[in-house]
């Protein structure tokens, strides 16, 4: 496919890997923020091709993983109301709530439907006027425009039986939280390319300045990722901390201004809990007052939610880049994609599911030094 296969070219990959090896003189820790990037890195084995000095840690950029337990539980309670058709992106169905997940709620009779796009949820509302249709609007800045478009569409069409349960989150406050933490190890960031297609990267230079970390906007193909890593390493080695763009075919500095306008028209920042991490100030988005009628939390006053998190799951530490999935005692034993204990094992962007799928067990990592010498 165009814009895809060219960025998987073996010769060019080898070329840039050699350049990376030549550039690196000491240990560096770089975080890729986006879970989609984590998966690509593991799928192509880039973590094992890089010189051992370069450690990639995996960030919190998996919206499914960070959706707070309380909202998952709320989603399940709303979904079980008889008048409700609950719609969601497929990834959310197996995310464990305190006592069950949406998938098992569906098994017990709740009407839960998977949609590809939130506009499809509006269509369902249009075709089922006697039902309340609720959409689980999770996601980062990448997904926010699609989520809010559904609200604008419902409003424009006068559809009254549609609402969203918002768990939308923003990347920059999470970067502040990671860099400001006392145990932070991150020295450079690969910024999430698809978030930046919407938001541009004008929000990042102040972060780079404040914490003295280079930030490189990075895409998702192997060459994109290696180029992002290379540009970050060049800066680290030179003691610089600028914001750069390694994904110029999709991202501009300003981003998609009209998508940003949709977001600011409908949403305002709010404090938000991140699952496993805790409260990050002003890291969430909620519907503005004038769209309150479309807010499911307002429409369905669900209370008495008693959350109970798994006692063994360390996904919070993984999402902050402090631990790796294979350091979790439950990894591959008690916790598998069929029987997940944490959201990071469920999502197609979760670090635990990536480690499971691409077999990064503890021995593989210890073997890293020997492996990377082979190339």
């Amino acid at each position, binding site marked *: 496919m165009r814009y895809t296969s060219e960025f998987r070219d073996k010769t060019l990959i080898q070329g*840039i890997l*050699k350049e990376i090896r030549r550039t690196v003189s000491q240990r560096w820790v770089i975080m890729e923020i986006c879970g989609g990037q984590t998966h690509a890195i593991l799928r192509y084995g880039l973590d094992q091709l890089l010189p051992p000095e370069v450690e990639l840690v995996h960030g919190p950029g998996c919206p499914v993983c960070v959706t707070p337990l309380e909202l998952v539980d709320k989603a399940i309670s709303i979904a079980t109301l008889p008048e409700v058709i609950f719609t969601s992106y497929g990834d959310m169905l197996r995310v464990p709530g305190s006592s069950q997940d949406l998938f098992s709620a569906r098994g017990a009779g709740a009407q839960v439907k998977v949609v590809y796009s939130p506009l499809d949820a509006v269509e369902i509302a249009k075709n089922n006027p006697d039902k309340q249709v609720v959409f689980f609007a999770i996601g980062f800045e990448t997904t926010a425009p699609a989520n809010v478009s559904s609200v604008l569409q419902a409003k424009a069409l006068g559809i009254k039986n549609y609402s969203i349960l918002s768990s939308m989150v923003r990347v920059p406050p999470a970067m502040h939280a990671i860099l400001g933490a006392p145990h932070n190890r991150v020295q450079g960031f690969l910024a999430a390319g698809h978030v930046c297609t919407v938001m541009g990267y004008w929000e990042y230079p102040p972060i780079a300045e404040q914490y003295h970390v280079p930030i490189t906007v990075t895409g998702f193909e192997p060459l994109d990722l290696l180029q992002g890593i290379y540009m970050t390493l060049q800066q680290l080695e030179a003691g610089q901390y600028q914001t750069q763009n390694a994904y*110029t075919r999709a991202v501009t500095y300003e981003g998609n201004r009209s*998508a940003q306008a949709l977001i600011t028209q409908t949403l305002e920042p709010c404090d938000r809990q991140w699952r496993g991490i805790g409260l990050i100030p002003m890291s969430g988005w909620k519907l503005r007052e004038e769209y309150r009628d479309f807010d499911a939390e307002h429409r369905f006053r669900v209370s008495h939610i008693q959350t109970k998190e798994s006692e063994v799951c360390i996904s919070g530490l993984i999402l902050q880049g402090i631990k790796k999935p294979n350091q979790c005692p439950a990894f591959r034993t008690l916790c598998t994609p069929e029987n997940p204990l944490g959201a990071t094992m469920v999502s197609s962007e979760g670090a635990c599911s990536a480690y499971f799928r691409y077999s990064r067990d503890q021995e593989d990592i210890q073997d890293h030094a020997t492996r990377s010498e082979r190339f």
Partner: protein
Amino acid sequence: MCLAVPGKIIQIYMRDTMRMCKADFGGITREACIETLPEAKEGDYIIVHAGFALNILSPEEAEATLQALEELSSLEEQIRSEDALS
């Protein structure tokens, strides 16, 4: 979730209040909303996520990136042959 894939616009139309298109993703045709990309036209490559086009891909920038990567590879070869000579 934040995965987004490149597709080529093959047809543009309105659905209710939204500007939509049909786009080709390597042989599979799907609908995408192009409401925030008023300049998008047939033949453009867009990057689509959750049925929503995030941006138009720039062929010039894609070419420039590949070019730079090629230069990097040949630079490496050049240095290696210089090393071999010295």
